[in-house]
């Protein structure tokens, strides 16, 4: 394609707006560009990984309007107006999400390529089913392939995160300050 031809094309690209992890973002890219590539290349959110690029492995899983999607199969134009959550949106104010804590403590992550997708699939599962059975955990993660762990530790991590959220149903700042007060009182 000639430089002129390309410039002409660029001028036709629409501005596409959506929110990522609660922040409004807009990009001017070819509308067929994959959401995965927009996240990684244009927004520099490289937590989302590319595995197979054909919707089979789940490495690129993100949440879009409350649904789990493979971002490699979403043309970015179809994300117009969407609310997107990536793995970067799980931790809050530097504090790991209970799922991340559970993966950390249960050996749920090894090489790390599948981990962001596993976390997003698990977050989706727990959002709809806070107390999943083993079968539900397996189905919820069935589209996410891991070549390191043999899956068992991943399933255990998700179960542990569900149990942990039982143990502390509300993870509020108030609780922390309470704790601080206790320390100060001592």
């Amino acid at each position, binding site marked *: 394609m000639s430089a002129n031809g390309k410039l002409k094309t660029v001028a036709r690209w629409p501005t596409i707006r959506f929110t990522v992890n609660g922040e409004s973002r807009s990009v001017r890219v070819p509308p067929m560009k994959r959401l995965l590539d927009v996240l990684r290349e244009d927004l520099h959110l490289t937590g989302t990984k590319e595995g197979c690029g054909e919707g089979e492995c789940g490495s690129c899983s993100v949440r879009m309007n409350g649904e789990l999607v493979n971002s490699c199969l979403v043309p970015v134009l179809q994300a*117009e107006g969407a609310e997107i959550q990536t793995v970067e949106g799980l931790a809050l104010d530097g504090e790991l999400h209970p799922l991340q804590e559970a993966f950390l403590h249960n050996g749920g992550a090894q090489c790390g390529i599948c981990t962001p997708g596993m976390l997003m699939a698990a977050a989706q599962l727990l959002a709809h089913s806070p107390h999943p059975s083993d079968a539900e955990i397996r189905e919820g993660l069935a589209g996410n392939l891991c070549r390191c762990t043999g899956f068992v530790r991943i399933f255990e991590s998700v179960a542990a995160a569900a149990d942990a959220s039982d143990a502390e149903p509300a993870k509020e700042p108030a609780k922390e300050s309470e704790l601080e007060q206790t320390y100060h009182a001592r």
Partner: protein
Amino acid sequence: MRGNAEMHELVAPGSLGAVLDLLAAEPGQWTPIAGGTELMVAFSAGHLDAHKLVSLWGIPDLRTIELTPQGVAIGAAATFLDLRKHAVINAELPLLAKAASWIGSIANQSRATLGGNLVNGSPAADSSPALLAYDAEIETISVRGRRRLPYSEFHTGYKRNVLAADELLYAIHLPRRFARHRQYLRKVGTRRAMAIAKVALGATALLEQGVIREIRLGAASLAPYPTRLRQTEAALLGQALTREAVLAARRALLAEVQPIDDIRSTAEYRRRVAVNVLEEFLLELRREGSRP
């Protein structure tokens, strides 16, 4: 070669009317794309032939599930998760809910649409055996109007269908009259998630005084496109489920299917599994009868 997004145009007119106008203005030029679980795979691999695509995602008229006393009308862009979550589909058309659960994984089911599964026209399409067993009809739409025809007449060849260049698949209509039928759906594949069917069979049947009064058999991966097994149905209709009748049905099935050798399986394996799956259904029907 990876796909290059700059080589493809994608527009989202946002309303059904605007999409139909575009298809009518330049018939055959625009390829509709809904959830992208098929076309984006081709795009990523650099194999997407279509250069002009029109998005059907987010068009409310196409993502509907409507109930009447007689039937369920499913908009072509309803996703498989929409189907799985629907109470009436789960209760009355459980084969469709089951088929929906077979589609890839949760991340595929949230995007893949029933209409896309049919228009894509894979011989192994997961939803097709259930739709054939339920005697589904499809409704098409264009600026020229709408038409309805049996789903069993939708596919006309390998990856070919009756849609004209300016037409969209609009809805899939399912009758609500299978409460008393024995219903059956079995997919044989490599693993439960993600795998494409080596063989799949959907069936509904009504047994009265031990005699088959109604039977519909829908098969995937046994012909160039999903198809009713009409000869096998004919061999069973009006019959009692004797050993001889089951054997005759097995012979009829073998005579009418045309499985192939491919990367997923062999024709011989498919033939053997298909007759065994059919027999499993017929024995279940004999043992359990129709549903009360």
